[in-house]
């Protein structure tokens, strides 16, 4: 029992965070929203090995587990990364690996192949137009579907940085894929929550009323402290869910949804009228949070799973039952 990242794991997460923070700046996001041309980050992700975080070492990957990918997903959430890196590196690659498709993983790592997943828990496929191939999930694996065979309908998200499509062939439930999807979505929500708190703190230090920064008022402090505490008790749950299955995963996703919604509502309240506009960048993070709350099992889905397991089942509960033997 040693529930913390090793130094090597933490270094890897920190390196990815430095790339995200350095490259996906607020200026870049504003340009994308305005339909201006920006540099494509995929070649950099490929070069830095971020696509192969979870790929086996035998094909040039870093063979990290889902907890490390969750740390990277949190960092991607912190910048509301427009690129669907988390989906590709954290869901598609592990699925390809489980299917024994090492040849395709090599192509992904080289930046030559973008693979999407068709799952019943994913009603909106982000960045589907960029994918060359889809894997339709089956109960214990997946089957490749070439792009012409998948019918897509374009959908407009309130999040201007997501390009959505709905697919006609959603696939079957697959617990391996859904575990990755739920944990990594929850991890992004933790990052988004943290970012919204940080933006609110900065705003509250600068904005003056009654001759003082509004951040000096306890009404503001207590709102933000409440969200901070929620984040600190959601992050470990998400990390634990990466290494467990079942109820820990449902708990993590629900906690991340509740934390992100609270963070967003608190952040707009702290920003006052400015938060209700495109004049400040808060809305980009808030809208991403709304979007991710519904993906890889929305709150209803995970709550129903928990009801079955905890309230209507005979699971052993109480102290000492949180970690699988």
């Amino acid at each position, binding site marked *: 029992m040693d529930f913390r990242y090793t130094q090597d794991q933490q270094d890897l997460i920190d390196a990815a965070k430095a790339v995200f923070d350095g490259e996906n700046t607020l200026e870049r996001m504003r340009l994308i929203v305005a339909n201006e041309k920006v540099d494509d980050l995929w070649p950099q992700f490929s070069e830095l090995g971020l696509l192969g975080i979870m790929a086996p070492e035998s094909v040039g990957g870093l063979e990290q587990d889902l907890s490390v990918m969750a740390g990277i997903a949190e960092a991607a959430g912190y910048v509301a990364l427009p690129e669907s890196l988390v989906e590709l590196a954290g869901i598609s690659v592990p699925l390809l690996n489980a299917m024994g498709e090492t040849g395709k993983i090599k192509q992904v790592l080289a930046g030559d192949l973008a693979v999407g997943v068709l799952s019943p828990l994913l009603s909106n496929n982000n960045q589907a137009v960029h994918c060359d191939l889809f894997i339709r999930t089956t109960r214990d694996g997946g089957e490749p579907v070439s792009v012409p065979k998948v019918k897509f309908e374009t959908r407009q998200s309130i999040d201007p940085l997501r390009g959505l499509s709905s697919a006609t062939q959603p696939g079957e439930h697959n617990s391996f894929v859904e575990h990755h999807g739920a944990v990594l979505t929850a991890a992004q929500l933790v990052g988004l929550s943290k970012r919204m708190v940080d933006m609110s703190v900065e705003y509250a230090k600068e904005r003056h009323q009654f001759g003082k920064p509004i951040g000096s008022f306890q009404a503001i402090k207590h709102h933000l402290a409440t969200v901070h505490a929620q984040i600190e008790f959601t*992050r470990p749950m998400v990390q634990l869910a990466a290494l467990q299955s079942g109820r820990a995963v449902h708990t993590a996703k629900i906690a991340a949804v509740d934390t992100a919604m609270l963070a967003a509502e608190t952040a707009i309240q702290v920003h006052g009228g400015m938060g209700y506009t495109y004049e400040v960048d808060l809305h980009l993070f808030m809208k991403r949070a709304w979007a991710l709350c519904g993906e890889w099992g929305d709150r209803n889905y995970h709550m129903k799973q928990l009801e079955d397991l905890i309230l209507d089942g005979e699971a052993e509960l109480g102290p000492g039952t949180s970690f699988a033997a």
Partner: protein
Amino acid sequence: MEVKFTDAQNAFRAEVREWLAAHVPSERLPSFDTKAGFELHREWERTLAKDKWGNVSWPVEYGGRGLDLTHWLIIEEEYYRADAPLRVSQNGIFLLAPTIMEFGTDAQKARFLPAMASGDEIWAQAWSEPGAGSDMAAIRTKAVREGDEYVISGQKTWSSRAVYADWCFGLFRTEEGSERHKGLSKILVPLDSKGLTIRPIAQLDGDEGFAELFFDEVRVPVDNLLGPEHGGWGVAMATAGFERGLLLRSPARFQAAAARLVDLYKKNRDRVSSGIREQVLQAWMTAERFCAATYALVAQVGAGASISSEASANKIFWSEMDRHLHRTAMTILGARAELESGADAEDNGRWLDGYMFSLAGPIYAGTNEIQRNILAERVLGLPRK
């Protein structure tokens, strides 16, 4: 990240479980805030101490086993799983003992720790004063040095366990004319000292869980000074960190309560509204989150990190969880919720007791408003003024 227990840790858990099964009293003890209950809990402390299960993380020479905090968490889990008696010695073992280990002299460690571990000396705390609650730096009770003694005069309040305990640890103004955080010292005082009057205060459940302490020229030897003279604020803050942080409330307590809440729901599922399902799950999930976060914190502490302002998030989280959990139970019980005893009182009024006690959680050990100020200012960096 490693989230599996080792074989050795599993064997340790089995050993604890077996010992508890053989020793935990078959009937719940009366509250330790009654005279009879206090002494029965003291006896339980002696039972724990005899086989060295009371303080496993302490060094061997003071009655512990020198084990790490992961082992402490395992014990806590088994302890609450077995529904063993609450620790009447908690002020001493969880709050004072870590402070003595950090700041005490060798003589103080040898004098106080073994007697604390054995249950022979039960400790109360004496920090708050009528004019110094959330604003603890407003402490006025004086300890004037006269030769080899301090002469203490003034008043303390909300002194938990003081009605029946043997000793108290308090913060007193030792430097004449000093103000606020300066000039305070932490001093250990026997509760049977001449000149010390103890007035019990009946708490919400009617029991005398705390007391007012009136000091009228109470004399204690200067050897009872813990840490630097006039440097008591720093010593007290270290204790506050332990209290809000890790030791006072382990996740097991809440996980056990959440499991009992699920059982209570199952027994009443036909007569409660469907909305209660979400509340029960919320309580269960919150306890699981507290567990995950505590194991993460223990891993950090094990790797050398120290707990400071972050502890404030802990205190907010567990106290508000506990209140919500017990309120949910009260909602399920409906008209039976008010019953203290008798055939219709669920679990002999335990949920009611728990709910009342949960209302104190957001107040003691520094109110949650103070904790939110600490988080906002020291962790998030918002301006003080």
